[in-house]
Structures are given as structure tokens and as C-alpha cells.
């Protein structure tokens, strides 16, 4: 394990300080040049901003969705097995493949989203929402062809994929709340929304945070969703750090520069990890 993760990891750090190009294992030491050069590039700064937006927005959706869904899925009802199967589908399906499904959903000519919007006479409203000019029922929005819409599409697809995972972790958290707490709440007269707000949610908080932090780690390092949906386009407007590192490191062959770009993920991951350990420990204590 030290070999397969440790070596590449430190090698990535080493490469990021060199001018290595494709086809060679090492290069000349260039110090922090790769890191400072990366900042000079407008596309890089956009990739950093997009990574933050992409991660935070999709996790916000996931958090709300998972909180609602998990509290319902712990109840008993008829057909629960089937509902759980449907809910878990996006997480179980290979991400590269299900993203192709979304590519078809957002197709430029035969998008089912646009067809439905048209039937509901909502095309105009959506165009107005995204500030698209000259678009309407005759000329429906190009979801993956406009920068702000493409970013929204990427966020939706990622939230869709992470949500089932968060639901699973949330359910685990709910299951770990001892039944005595329920009984005590009942005796104290807490029911329904009151119980949810004062009893269940606070108890769920630590594990919910763990789920979100996991989600952040998965999302910040996500490559397949963005690459397959938009390849970072249109005009690099949806580049995130992993896709930009791929673009620079593999497609343009500047290995050292690419390694430096992907290493910019580290500070974000480090902060998240510290939080995660902190909350895992707190959950352990209580």
C-alpha cells in the first residue's frame, strides 16, 4: 500500500517541481514555477472557482435531499425494497456510463428535458432564468452548450450521483440512535416536526457531517462526470481541477505542470480531512 499510493503520491509532489514532459520520468528542477505559472493562467483560476462552486452546490443539494429521504426511508412502508432499489441506482451504476445517459438527456436536438419544458410551456421561463437571449420554444436552450447552463447540468448530475450515498450514510446514522431516545422524547411529549427538529436532527448531525465531507472529497476529485458531459467546455467554462490537470498533463503533455495543478486539490482535502477526523471522534465519544 505504501508502494502503490505512497510512491506515486510523493512522486506527484516531486514532478510538480520539475519541467517533466510526456515520455520522461523526471525533469529539471524548476522550484515553484509550476505552481506560480498555473496561477497566471485564467483557465486555472476558473478551474479553481468551478471546483469550489461544483463541490459546494452539489453538496448543498445532497445534504437537503438526503436529510429528507433518509428520515422517510427508515420508516416501514409497502414497496420499501423497490423504492430503495430505485434510490440506490445512481450510486450503483458505473459513473462513466450513467453520465452518458445524461449526455443523451441533455442532447442538443432531442433533449427530453426540453421536450417536457416545451409541453409545459416553461421554455421561456428557463431561458429567462439563465439569461439566454433569443431562445424560446422554437430555439430551446442548449444545456451543455452555454457556460452557465453547462455548469448547472454538471452540478445536477453530480448531486444526483452522490445523493444515494449520502442517504445510505444518513440511514446508518439514524439506525445508531438508540430507541431509548425515542421513548424519552415520546414521554416528554415531543412528536412530529418538533421531535425531528429538537431530537433527531441534532443527534444526526455528526454522521451527516461525515457524509457531507465524504461527498466533498468525492466531488472535488471527480473527473468522469465533467469530462464526459462537457470535456471542460464550452471554452473551458466548466473545467475543474482534475479535468484541467488532465488537459495539461496528458493532452498537452506537460506532466510537471499537470501534477502541480492536481496538487492544488490537497489543501482543500486536508481541511476536509481534519474536520472529518474531528467529527468522527466526537461521534465516537457520544
Amino acid at each position, binding site marked *: 500500500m505504501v508502494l502503490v499510493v505512497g510512491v506515486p503520491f510523493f512522486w506527484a509532489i516531486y514532478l510538480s517541481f520539475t519541467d517533466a514532459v510526456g515520455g520522461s520520468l523526471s525533469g529539471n528542477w524548476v522550484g515553484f514555477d509550476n505552481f506560480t505559472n498555473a496561477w497566471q493562467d485564467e483557465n486555472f483560476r476558473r478551474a479553481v472557482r468551478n471546483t469550489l462552486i461544483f463541490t459546494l452546490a452539489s453538496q448543498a443539494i445532497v445534504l437537503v435531499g438526503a436529510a429528507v429521504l433518509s428520515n422517510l426511508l427508515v420508516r416501514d412502508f409497502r414497496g420499501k425494497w423497490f423504492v430503495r432499489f430505485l434510490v440506490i441506482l445512481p450510486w450503483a451504476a458505473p459513473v462513466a456510463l450513467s453520465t452518458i445517459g445524461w449526455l443523451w438527456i441533455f442532447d442538443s436536438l432531442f433533449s427530453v428535458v426540453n421536450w417536457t419544458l416545451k409541453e409545459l410551456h416553461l421554455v421561456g421561463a428557463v431561458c429567462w432564468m439563465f439569461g439566454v437571449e433569443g431562445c424560446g420554444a422554437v430555439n430551446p436552450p442548449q444545456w451543455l452548450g452555454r457556460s452557465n447552463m453547462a455548469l448547472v447540468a454538471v452540478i445536477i448530475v453530480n448531486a444526483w450521483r452522490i445523493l444515494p450515498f449520502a442517504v445510505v450514510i444518513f440511514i446508518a446514522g439514524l439506525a445508531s440512535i438508540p430507541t431509548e431516545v425515542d421513548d424519552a422524547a415520546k414521554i416528554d411529549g415531543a412528536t412530529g416536526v418538533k421531535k425531528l427538529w429538537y431530537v433527531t436532527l441534532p443527534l444526526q448531525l455528526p454522521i451527516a457531517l461525515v457524509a457531507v465531507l465524504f461527498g466533498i472529497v468525492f466531488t472535488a476529485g471527480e*473527473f468522469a462526470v465533467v469530462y464526459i458531459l462537457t470535456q471542460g467546455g464550452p471554452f473551458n467554462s466548466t473545467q475543474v481541477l482534475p479535468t484541467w490537470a488532465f488537459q495539461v498533463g496528458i493532452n498537452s503533455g506537460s506532466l510537471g505542470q499537470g501534477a502541480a495543478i492536481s496538487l492544488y486539490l490537497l489543501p482543500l482535502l486536508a481541511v476536509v480531512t481534519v474536520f472529518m477526523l474531528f467529527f*468522527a471522534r466526537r461521534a465516537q465519544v457520544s
Partner: protein
Amino acid sequence: MASLRAGLRSLPTYLVVAPFAIVLAFPFYWMLMTMFKEDSDLYDVTHVPYVFNPIQWRFWESATTKHVSFIFEETNYPTWLLNTAIVGGLVVLITLVISAPAGYALARLSGRWGQGVGIAIFLVYLVPPTLLFLPLSRLVTELHLKDTLWSLILVYPSFTIPFSTWLLMGFFKTIPQELEDAALIDGCSRLKALRKIVFPVSLPGLLTVVIFTFTLCVNEFIYAFTFVSSSEVRTVSAGVPNDLIRGDVFFWQSLMAATLIPAIPLALLYNAFLDRFIKGFTGGAFR
């Protein structure tokens, strides 16, 4: 009457759960419809896209299976499925051989040290492949493994082992030490106690690890995408987006068939093992 009343009581639950389930599962319904459609039905904006056209009660008469058989007969799709199975199978084997003893040792190691190593393994799992793929792709080339399944078989354990060790640690912690002690007192050797007592009890845990390791391998994209470039050695995750999409020509029916087919068995397995997964996951982290 009683069941009707029970159904009514869960009506609010259904009302909230149903939209979620529909939105989450919709892309898969969409794949299912698309894969059986005729070209003349699919590429006509006047048609209702949610059903087969022309609309009729015997809806299968408006559908076709020719696009599904196309990917099995005319493309490398069967090879990709086979490659995925080979990679997944071997990685599962490697993962089990290493992470089962490691997880057991970590679960039995008490005190600061064991906990520290446990956390370290957890941290390794958090390093995303997107951070490692650049140096690893160089390494793979140097070892002359580029364009072989071996590159994937050797690299995938880097994320499956930490994950599995973490899960198994949780499972082993739930097996009481007293059970082993009793076997030792009854005259079992340490190894025999492991084989006869610990192994059977942890079988569900091991099976869960097998399932999740396998699905992680099927899911993996960036390594499979960068290490392998010939079509015949690709896995499904890399093969379908690369080789079934040619330039700007999308054969949507075939594509959708190719994406849906691996998803269904994986989802069924996931669902069957979900409860065990939850137990193992939280057992490792919150105990």
C-alpha cells in the same frame, strides 16, 4: 381494512418519497426506452418521447432489439465486459488476501497504535485517483504495462485495499474476542481458531467486501481511460465512452443499451448487501 388504513397512514411518506425516487431513477427509465426504439421513432421531435411510437397497446410492436444485438455482434462490447470481469475478479482476490489479515490485525490491536494505523489507512482512501493518475501513468509506461489489463490489476488495489481494510476492521470488531478465547481454551490452535471460528462468522463481511471491491473496479474511469488505449483491452467504463462514441456520431440506442446492462446487476447486488455495508461502515468509524 387494516392494510388499507396502514396504507393511508403512509400516504404522506409515499407523496414525498415518490418524486425523489422518480427523479433518481428517471435516467435509467430513459435508457430503457431509448435502447429499444427505432430510428424513425427516436429522431422525431413530434413524438412523445416517454413511450414507443406509434403508440399502441401492443407497445412491443413499435420497439426493436436490433440496436441491442448490434453492440454484442458488431462491437468490442462483449470483450469489455469480459475484461471488466477479469480485472474485477483478480483485484478482489488481491484485495482479500491483503486486507483480511490487515483488517483482523487492526481490529485486535488495541490502544493508540492500532487506532493510529486505522486512521492512516482511512486517510489513504481519501487521496483521490485524480491526484495520482499522472505519476502512475508514467510508472505504468516505464514498467511496460501500458495498454495491458495488468496495469489496472496492479493499480486498482491502491484504492480497494484501504477501503476494504476499513470495512473489514469494522466487521472484525463486532466479533467478540471471547469467542476466540473460548476456542483456544478448548484446545484449538490459533490458526484453527481463525479458520473454524472467525472465518465462518465474518463470511458475510468478506462477501460484502467482495461485492464493493468489484463495483469499485467497474466504476473506475480515469485510470482505465489513461492507462489503456487499444479498444480490445478496455474495460466497460472506458470502452463505452471512448469507442462507442465515434466523433460526432452518437448511436444512442446502442449507447443506452451498453450503459444500462452493467448497471442493473450492480444495483441489485448493492441493494442486497446494503444493510451489511451500513453496519460495516459505521462499525469501523463510530465505535
